[in-house]
């Protein structure tokens, strides 16, 4: 609930900013690495896995 103006709370909660940004970069970084691996592994067989044509998707 709305209480009052407590400027020190900004500094107190900076830890959430640090943790949050660290967490999001860690998760997204993992996804990036995984996607690069997926692309590398599945990209080796272009005939078997036909590349998508965006126009065929609709």
């Amino acid at each position: 609930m709305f209480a009052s103006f407590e400027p020190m709370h900004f500094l107190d909660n900076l830890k959430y900013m640090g943790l949050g940004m660290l967490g999001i970069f860690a998760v997204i970084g993992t996804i990036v690495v995984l996607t690069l691996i997926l692309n590398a592994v599945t990209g080796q067989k272009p005939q078997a896995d036909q590349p998508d044509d965006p126009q065929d998707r609709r």
Partner: protein
Amino acid sequence: MADLFANILNLDWKMVVMWVIGGVLIWLAIKKDMEPTLLLPMGFGAILVNLPLSGAVSHFFPDGSLDGEAGPLSVLYDAGIANELFPLILFIGIGAMIDFGPLLSNPILMLFGAAAQFGIFFTLCTASMFFDLKDAASIAIIGAADGPTSIVVGQKLQSNYIGAIMVAAYSYMALVPIIQPPVIRMMTTKKERLIRMEYTQKPVSKTTRILFPIFITIIAGLVAPASVALVGFLMFGNLLRECGVLDSLSETAQKVLANLITIFLGITIASQMQADKFLQKETLLILGLGLVAFIFDTVGGVLFAKLLNLFLKKKINPMIGAAGISAFPMSGRVVHKMALKEDPTNFLLMQATGVNVSGQIASVIAGGLILNFFL
């Protein structure tokens, strides 16, 4: 005759103010084409629930017991919003609409989506100066630029300001073309805005497209279990799209399902826009904090691109960092148009779209992290 008009005596000025607010939302939706699918039902709903003794919502005695029958909008709220069902189902439709192709073709772009969530965490700290932490976190998630995520986080954290948060989230999404350009211009030099980026569409295999939503769900579920429903429903929708054998289900999710839920979502959210709950000084503060969140999302994305440029040989146009907010496709288009304005032969649409799509994943994960912290 007197009985016919007796209810007029129950009208108070706050209700009339809410009619005006509802009218403004309807006007923005119709005249300005600003998120009409949500703002129009919300605008109409704001009028509907602010009629004296409105039968659209439930009324309670001071002891908390129900006065008469439950109102249909209150029933819908309990059935679909209070338990987060509507936004989650909507996520299936959104997932089915998203083509992750540009992102899978250039996965590094996902990092910009992460950077552009900075506004959420900055706003969390800022809002905590005025609100308790759970309300501050619910307000901060306006910066996710993603309505369903805002609803789910706000509901799970039992925020007292869900109506104001929804109005802010959807209004600012529609205002992206107005909010972002001045911030981007302020954060970049003309020389940076003129940077060209080559784009080569690398082929993405069907296997990658199918495995991607499954892997994302597993990773997000392991790191932020509270967000697994959000991520899972989004990725389930995408799997329907990409599997290639459920085209009719994908089509239904994209159109019929998404439209049905959208109709009920907007008008049901309006049940939280009753004058006594909505017309508080906190509402104005929440609208201000929502703007802060969008501005600092943009700042975070642009600064991250500038940081990368310190180390990269092939420079990135830092404007694409701003497309990392989830507002899709508005944010990508804003960056593309700004690049064209600086140099009519500089096309950044594909890069900006890739970054914009990454923002959709990152915003959901950010929502999950917020829930992890405060649930």
